[in-house]
């Protein structure tokens, strides 16, 4: 790929890449160290190490419930997203390919809507019980917001297989659409489904804006607890941040691992924050 086949990287490359890696890793590494440091404002390296902030964090009053809420929200969003998007993408590819541009537009639309604007619009329209400021409304909002992350990998996976031939083969054996999806299509696009699901899971797990603005304190998620603690207790907040970073790392590693197992190249959708 390279123009001039270099055998060694030149010094400007080392400098630039060095600064880049430093800038990318410094905040994360510092947070990890800070979460186990007794005192770290007088010396270059911490004066001592402790796990007491983690014990404090685990004992914090909303710790378990906020983790549980975040898991509920993320998993519910993944499931609703899968049920909505996988059959739709399949259907559009096989039956009505001429509507694909419309689907593409619908999928890029959430990028053009700032999350606060989506929150305002939903809160204004659904201001009646039982939807008003409810977790159900939140799931609806988060599904919209995370849709592009599910769509890209699933759509790429469907494009990579000969979906029309598979469908015709299944139909000639007497399978209906539901059987086709379950027995033929889904097993063939599992890589895309897993990549999309993990990406949505990681995105929603870190979601703060929609949760805070649509439901507020009644449904406290992990990022909300973290923001709360940045103002109360920095050390506990560091422990929360580390947990949050670690979940994000794990999800990213899983996405890479899943991507390397399938033949479908892992392609990430880019989200507007």
């Amino acid at each position: 790929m390279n123009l001039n086949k270099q055998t060694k990287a030149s010094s400007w490359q080392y400098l630039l890449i060095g600064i880049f890696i430093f800038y990318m890793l410094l905040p994360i590494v510092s947070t990890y160290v800070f979460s186990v440091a007794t005192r770290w404002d007088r010396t270059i390296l911490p004066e001592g190490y402790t796990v007491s902030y983690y014990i404090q964090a685990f004992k914090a009053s909303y710790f378990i419930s906020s983790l549980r809420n975040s898991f509920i929200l993320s998993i519910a969003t993944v499931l609703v997203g899968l049920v909505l998007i996988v059959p739709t993408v399949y259907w559009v590819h096989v039956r009505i390919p001429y509507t694909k541009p419309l689907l593409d537009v619908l999928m890029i639309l959430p990028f053009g809507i700032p999350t606060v604007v989506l929150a305002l619009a939903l809160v204004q329209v659904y201001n009646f019980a039982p939807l008003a400021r409810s977790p159900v409304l939140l799931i609806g909002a988060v599904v919209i917001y995370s849709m592009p992350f599910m769509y890209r990998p699933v759509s790429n996976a469907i494009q990579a297989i000969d979906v029309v031939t598979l469908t015709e083969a299944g139909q000639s054996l007497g399978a209906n659409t539901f059987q086709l999806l379950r027995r033929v299509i889904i097993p063939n696009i599992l890589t895309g489904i897993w990549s999309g699901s993990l990406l949505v899971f990681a995105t929603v797990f870190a979601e703060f804006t929609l949760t805070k603005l649509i439901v507020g304190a009644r449904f406290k998620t992990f990022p909300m607890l973290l923001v709360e603690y940045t103002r109360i207790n920095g050390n506990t907040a560091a422990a929360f941040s580390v947990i949050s970073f670690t979940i994000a790392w794990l999800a990213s590693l899983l996405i890479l691992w899943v991507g390397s197992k399938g033949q479908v190249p892992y392609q990430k959708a880019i989200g507007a924050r």
Partner: protein
Amino acid sequence: MTSIKSRKRNITDLFGVVPFLLFCLAFEIIPIILLIRGSLIDKATKAFTLKHYLSLGTPLYINSFWNSIKLSGLTALIGCILGTLIAYAIYRWPSIKVQHALVTLSDVTTNFAGAPLAFAFIVILGMNGVITQILLRYFHIQLYPKLSIYSFSGLVLAYVYFQVPLMILLVIPAFEGLKKEWFESAQSLGASNFQYWWRIGLPLLMPSIIAGLTLLFANAFGAFATAYTLVESQLSLVTLQIGFMIAGEVRHDPGIGMAMSVVSLILMGLSIGLYQLSTRRAKWLVRSSS
């Protein structure tokens, strides 16, 4: 059994996408349309009005838009330049393995936005932050109050953190689209390395760079969580103002919030539209010149 390909367009086939369309209508399209309508209607008299938009002329809102545009524009520009340079360094790196590792790093870090990222910056650059203290003790450089992580300059540092890797991811494919033959023919005609990049490489990359710039702008303009955690109400940004209105932390006519939202939607729409145009141009350039 007729083949799917030979089948005519069948109206009933359209029903397959109804659940998905209904969901989008219910949770996205209709609320946004009603938001636009609400911004143009006087709540008391139900008559058409432009007064919400006229209220945006007050210093608080002008300031919010100016700050948001300044922050998004500046971090998009910094992210764009640094991202392109680093992408070039990655692209010219001799080891494919290192290239992959660096792209993966960008992939992971561009998603580290929001509250955890904001807090990580407080850890290193807060009032008692690690870097702040090291600079003070060993280099006698006093950051505060000149540079504060809780202010505009701090937001720039935090936003650049997720803008640079995003730019790398956007522009790396464009570098890889440059054909070796183009460089070789330029070289055989006596062009220097600089001449190749100035006359051929950069113009071919330009649409992708502009596409990156517009997407980075939209990315920063819509951001909320990072700014909320860092500056809260010390700096007014469009997204923060809208957020405060929803949370009921400031009492304002919701119409003003809707008008702000509509103006933001227009700005975002323009940048996403430009992004789409530039990517199309980028694809066309690569296709037509090969």
